[in-house]
């Protein structure tokens, strides 16, 4: 009974709940005790519950073979706009398939964890209620995005999460840096969104529909021209790259750390930034039709992964290291998608969500305790904050790709697929990146929790966070430890699925594949991770003297990384000189040419003529009479001449 109550056709309820919470809390938050935070948490818990029910229904449908896991179906739709009797239709439609079913638990569960955690973290902040309202709004938009059956609705939700991100990055808007970061994030993603919208419209132009599945069918049937489809999919990817902070749009994500830390955990690590990955995964059958576009995805992923990892090596802000890490890991996912490895990408997305949100929440716990974000001011905190230190370390090991931890399985899968389907260089680059990941992760853990405290005052001040914060940390740590195992067929079956994630999430023409641990390959991957950890320990254990030596070994290189390859400066320069320069030229043109020459000029011309002609008005009667007489004479001459 309860199981039938909410099925796949009712997924529209999922975003509706947090949206209702948003309305309630943002308008009436002041009237509710505790500004309505518990409403947000309870609402989210309800969503998690419903997601569970939907999941059960999905499994049932899967077993009954009501629909194939990938083909899916629009489970619910109504026309929102209809022009010309179905010629141009914008509909509201929900679509559920295995990819959705990966996303839904991630989004809802991490959101619940973050909301619970926030009760402790945000305690006593101004705009406490607004925080929960905005977060609920974000979740609503994100859930809507995930269940969208058509691209325009997806775009709507896409912009919705962008808005939520903007509002939450700029939560501390009194700080100019926060305001600037919010602006930067919004504008950068917005530029990507231009591409997304263009891509959507280009797809519509040929197929006449926004429905994702119909577009995929059309692409598979070869309705599109190859070049046309390539261009369209590249535009679409621009949107995905913008939202997922891929090169060259990655600049906004490190700055987005100006927002409250739980926000970074939820939006800028676990959920929103993977929307790009989700979009490309959703459209992957189409990308498979145009390999050039898919290769672009691969290369962008590779570049981003490597670049962000190197930048992560030198970052000193605990949250920024994690931000670079996020960018880098998103690069991993895109690289996997770039070789058509849907399973690997979604699997990594899944595990990454848990351990990266764990890491962010852990860093939030540290910041909450010490009010310090720079690793140079931290150190030795494991004694003061044992739970945080332990969970953070688990998350780090997962990120580094140490076996058993979640990250190992998914990263291994990606590397495996790259080795098989991609160019060899791509595999090498990602392997190196994996090693670098291990290095900076180790560095972060060592500098934060080990060694001697560098700022005694902050250290003295530090204390373990309250249970409402450590509780989510522990839950997430457990998950970061175990979720990787769902790749195994047996684990999947025991949970009620047909098998491991590879048998659930796959492209139709690739077919399901049963995970088998390739011991040799896994050993190589593990060795890479262990070497990375070892290098990290070697350089940063104790007083980090070697690390400083390495820094001074090539100061230019170090500076290059610290300044993030000067890309921010480049963009700022382009904005200052090219965009604002163009704006200045146009403004000048408008002021001088259009207004002062064209408009004022014509009035001045008339005025000038008037000034000249007024001298005809001598005021002397004889002159007027002469004029009159001349006129009469002229008229008389004309009259005579014509008769």
């Amino acid at each position: 009974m309860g199981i039938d109550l909410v099925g796949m056709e009712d997924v529209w309820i999922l975003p509706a709940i947090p949206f209702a919470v948003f309305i309630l809390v943002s308008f009436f938050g002041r009237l509710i005790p505790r500004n309505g935070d518990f409403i947000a948490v309870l609402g989210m818990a309800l969503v998690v519950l419903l997601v569970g029910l939907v999941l059960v229904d999905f499994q049932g449908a899967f077993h009954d073979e009501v629909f194939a896991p990938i083909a899916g179906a629009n489970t619910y739709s109504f026309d929102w706009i209809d022009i010309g009797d179905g010629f141009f239709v914008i509909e509201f439609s929900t679509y559920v398939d295995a990819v959705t079913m990966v996303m839904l638990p991630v989004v809802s569960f991490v959101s619940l964890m973050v909301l619970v955690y926030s009760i402790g973290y945000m305690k006593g902040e101004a705009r406490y209620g607004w925080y929960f309202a905005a977060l609920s709004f974000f979740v609503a938009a994100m859930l809507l995005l995930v269940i969208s059956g058509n691209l325009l609705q997806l775009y709507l939700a896409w912009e919705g999460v962008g808005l939520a991100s903007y509002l939450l990055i700029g939560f501390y808007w009194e700080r100019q840096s926060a305001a600037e970061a919010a602006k930067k994030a919004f504008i950068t993603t917005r530029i990507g969104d231009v591409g997304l919208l263009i891509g959507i419209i280009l797809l519509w132009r040929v197929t006449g529909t926004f429905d994702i599945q119909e577009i995929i069918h059309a692409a598979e049937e070869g309705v599109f021209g190859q070049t046309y489809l390539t261009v369209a999919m590249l535009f679409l990817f621009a949107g995905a790259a913008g939202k997922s902070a891929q090169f060259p749009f990655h600049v906004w994500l490190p700055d987005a750390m100006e927002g409250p830390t739980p926000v970074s955990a939820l939006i800028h690590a676990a959920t929103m930034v993977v929307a790009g990955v989700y979009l490309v995964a959703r459209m992957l059958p189409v990308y498979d039709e145009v390999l050039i576009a898919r290769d672009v995805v691969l290369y962008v992923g590779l570049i981003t992964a490597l670049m962000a990892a190197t930048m992560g090596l030198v970052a000193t802000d605990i949250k920024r290291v994690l931000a670079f890490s996020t960018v880098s890991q998103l690069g991993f996912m895109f690289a996997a998608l770039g070789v058509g490895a849907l399973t690997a990408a979604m699997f990594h997305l899944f595990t990454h969500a848990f351990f990266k949100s764990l890491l962010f929440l852990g860093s939030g716990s540290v910041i909450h305790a010490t009010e310090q974000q720079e690793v140079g001011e931290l150190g030795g905190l494991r004694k003061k904050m044992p739970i945080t230190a332990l969970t953070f370390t688990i998350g780090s090991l997962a990120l580094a790709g140490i076996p058993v931890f979640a990250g190992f399985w998914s990263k291994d899968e990606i590397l495996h697929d790259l080795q098989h389907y991609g160019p060899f260089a791509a595999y090498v680059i990602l392997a190196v990146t994996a090693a670098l990941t291990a290095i900076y992760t180790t560095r972060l853990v060592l500098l934060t929790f080990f060694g001697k405290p560098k700022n005694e005052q902050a250290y003295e001040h530090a204390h373990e966070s309250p249970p409402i914060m450590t509780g989510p940390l522990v839950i997430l740590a457990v998950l970061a430890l175990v979720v990787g195992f769902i790749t195994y067929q047996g684990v999947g079956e025991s949970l009620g699925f047909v098998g491991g994630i590879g048998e659930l999430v796959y492209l139709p023409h690739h077919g399901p594949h049963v995970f088998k641990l390739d011991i040799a390959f896994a050993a190589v991957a593990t060795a890479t991770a262990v070497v990375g950890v070892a290098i990290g320990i070697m350089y940063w254990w104790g007083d980090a003297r070697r690390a400083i030596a390495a820094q001074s070994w090539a100061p230019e290189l170090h500076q290059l990384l610290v300044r993030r390859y000067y890309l921010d400066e480049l963009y700022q320069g382009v904005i200052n000189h090219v965009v604002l320069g163009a704006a200045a030229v146009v403004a000048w043109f408008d002021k001088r040419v259009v207004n002062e020459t064209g408009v004022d000029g014509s009035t001045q011309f008339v005025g000038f003529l008037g000034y000249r002609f007024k001298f005809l008005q001598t005021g002397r009667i004889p002159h007027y009479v002469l004029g009159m007489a001349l006129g009469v004479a002229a008229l008389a001459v004309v009259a005579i001449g014509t008769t």
Partner: protein
Amino acid sequence: MIPIENFLILSSLLFAMGLYGVLARRSAILILMSIELMLAAVSINFIAFATYLDGEAFSGLVFALFVITVAAAEVGLALGIVLRLFRERRTAYVDAADSLKW
């Protein structure tokens, strides 16, 4: 019997001379006189047409009569204005009255 053209030629010449006077003279009094010439020319035309071309020979005469009458009134009024001008500007020259300029 005198052909009508003779009268018309006479009035044309008279009118043109009057016009010349109006345009060429500076003194307001002389301009008034020139206007009288023009009016006389017009009256001649009226009467000539009435006598020669109109069977009743009436409207033209009445018109001429009114012209004369109105001319008298006009001269009276105009002289008043001229005197006024003279008082204001110490001259009766019309080009002194140019406060309408620009």
